[in-house]
């Protein structure tokens, strides 16, 4: 089982490294200078992203006339783009290839030259890849990364659960956490409230262009597809109608705070966790069950909203292009997970470490405001950026802090007294 956990952790680490590398990739420029006496059918592989520019530059020396033929083939689809030119100038105008889609391209470059008498013919070839904005790379990577991340998380969870050797028992513990009248109902009420706010805008989508123009909401170009843009507008518009994106975030955040505080702090205060321990539930089982409950309950409204709205807004797309639908859904769920991680990073420490639920509730509610006041640079990593700009880079500190919080939470739960 350890192998499964290690494999899951490796997947998560690898995907996070790739994710963090995306930014540096955007700054990189791959430049190569080649010098050949005669080049025929030279092949170069490019791993480029939508909007990246491949700038080919060639010049000649000791050549009377020349012919150039450039062909880019996208290897996954076989689509090709060609360019040919001929002339006699030594430094001609050279082509620029703008990648229509992300993927691996094979460029074939051939020169036919007529040398000048008494000269040694020389062809100088160089190329540079000028990357487009980071969003193109994110759009390409996020579905793949999200699959890797999800797979990693699933593997770790399976590993941990199987390690406990009581899968049905663990599932029973989770179902017990969901037992009761309020948790699921509270989650559904929040979902329904947000849906109620969102639905009119989905149903009357012809007003969207007008609304978005007035509000000048930024939409990253990568999401400009029929389904994505509509939902971008839906999700982005509602916070504006409520008085800013912060309101949307805080409505959701308050919900997560209440869920976490009642799952951990309240049950410690009322000695219910001690009761669970005394009936024979181990600390790790209890911690994992409660944590899983918090994550599921936090994700549930966001996932439900996306699923329902996407189905309502573009039902045809679900039927006609299910893969495209899944791809967009994947991006959305990744964003949901990001928002949940940010909310839980602020909420879990007070819920876990403070055993008086009113104090835990108050501190958890004020935590983002206090932290932003103390550390002004946190504004750059505010969840609002994730909600409006889909700036996933704001997640980076939380991806480090969140696992640390989980680990510290376990250590605290494992070694604290339940007197």
């Amino acid at each position, binding site marked *: 089982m350890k192998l499964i956990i290690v494999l899951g952790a490796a997947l998560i680490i690898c995907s996070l490294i790739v994710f963090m590398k995306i930014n540096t990739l955007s700054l990189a420029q791959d430049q190569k200078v080649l010098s050949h006496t005669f080049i025929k059918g030279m092949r170069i592989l490019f791993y480029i992203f939508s909007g990246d520019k491949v700038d080919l530059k060639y010049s000649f020396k000791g050549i009377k006339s020349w012919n150039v033929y450039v062909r880019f083939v996208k290897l996954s689809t076989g689509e090709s783009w060609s360019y040919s030119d001929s002339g006699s100038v030594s430094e001609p105008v050279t082509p620029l290839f703008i990648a229509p889609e992300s993927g691996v391209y094979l460029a074939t470059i051939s020169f036919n030259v007529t040398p000048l008498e008494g000269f040694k013919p020389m062809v100088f070839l160089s190329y540079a890849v000028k990357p487009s904005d980071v969003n193109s790379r994110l759009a390409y990577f996020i579905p793949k990364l999200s699959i890797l991340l999800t797979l990693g998380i699933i593997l770790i969870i399976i590993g941990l659960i199987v390690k406990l050797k009581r899968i049905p*028992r663990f599932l*029973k*513990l989770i179902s*017990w956490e969901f*037992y*009761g*009248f*309020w948790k699921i109902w509270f989650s559904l009420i929040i979902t329904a409230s947000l849906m109620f706010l969102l639905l009119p805008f989905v149903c009357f989508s012809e007003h969207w262009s007008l609304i978005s123009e007035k509000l000048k909401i930024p939409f990253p170009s990568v999401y400009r597809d029929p389904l994505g843009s509509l939902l971008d507008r839906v999700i982005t518009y509602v916070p504006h109608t409520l008085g800013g994106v912060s309101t949307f975030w805080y409505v959701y955040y308050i919900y997560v705070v209440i869920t976490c505080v009642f799952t951990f702090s309240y049950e410690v205060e*009322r*000695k*219910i966790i*001690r*009761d669970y*321990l*005394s*009936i*024979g*539930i*181990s*600390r*790790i089982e209890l911690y994992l069950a409660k944590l899983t409950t918090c994550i599921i309950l936090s994700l549930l409204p966001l996932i439900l909203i996306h699923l329902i709205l996407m189905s309502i807004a573009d039902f045809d797309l679900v039927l006609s292009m299910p893969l495209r639908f899944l791809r967009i859904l994947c991006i959305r769920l990744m964003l949901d997970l990001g928002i949940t991680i940010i909310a839980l990073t602020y909420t879990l420490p007070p819920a876990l470490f403070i055993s008086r639920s009113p104090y835990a509730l108050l501190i958890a509610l004020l935590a983002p405001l206090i932290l932003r006041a103390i550390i002004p640079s946190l504004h750059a990593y505010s969840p609002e950026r994730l909600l409006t700009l889909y700036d996933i880079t704001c997640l980076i500190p939380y991806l480090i802090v969140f696992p640390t919080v989980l680990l510290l939470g376990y250590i605290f739960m494992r*070694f604290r*007294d*339940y*007197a």
Partner: protein
Amino acid sequence: MHEDIVVYVEKLHKKFLYTYALKGVNLTIRYGEHCLLLGPNGSGKSTLIKLLAGLIKPSKGKVRVLNFNPFKEFSKLKNYIGVVLDDFSLPWWTNGYDYLKHVAIVKKAEWSEVEEIATYLNVTTYWKRLIGTYSAGMKKKIALVQALIGKPKLILLDDPFTALDRKSRRLLIEILKNKSKEATIIVSSHIISGLESVVKKVVVLDEGKVILEEEMNEKLRKIIGKDII
């Protein structure tokens, strides 16, 4: 450590902030040596039971329960013990029936066993109502049922008779007599009448120390029977 030793405590200390609840307790309890813990309020009886149940960690000293370290090896020990604490708490948002079903799953106990004890203690008459609506005695009986099911090897009961009526006390003593054949019972109580037929050892604590540890004898039996301690 001998295999027949259920509880082994050596120089056990427990400190809460600046107060020592236990100050160097030494105690050995063997299989079938059902023990009655006595002592005034604040003498450390409840703390000792929580330490034996692995709910709190000792500040100093050694504790072994069924040959496990109760705090560090809680996950192994938990399958063999049944516990009722004096200030127990039950999830108020559920009913007794569902709660005991959950406990039965956790403890891998047969439902028939739960029904048998619950029926004996008259829990079945109200167990489908929300726990939040129960009286203290009703809650206590639910807590007792959860501690007694799952065939535990060690039963730790802290003040089990408080809030119970006379009839329920008598029924509980009958159950304990029955359970004493298969489990070792450690009970801490101020209401001790009737327990003389169950316990085989009396341990008296005062100010966090054991001041008396004695096998049950006629003299003690008479004192306990008259409930005059």
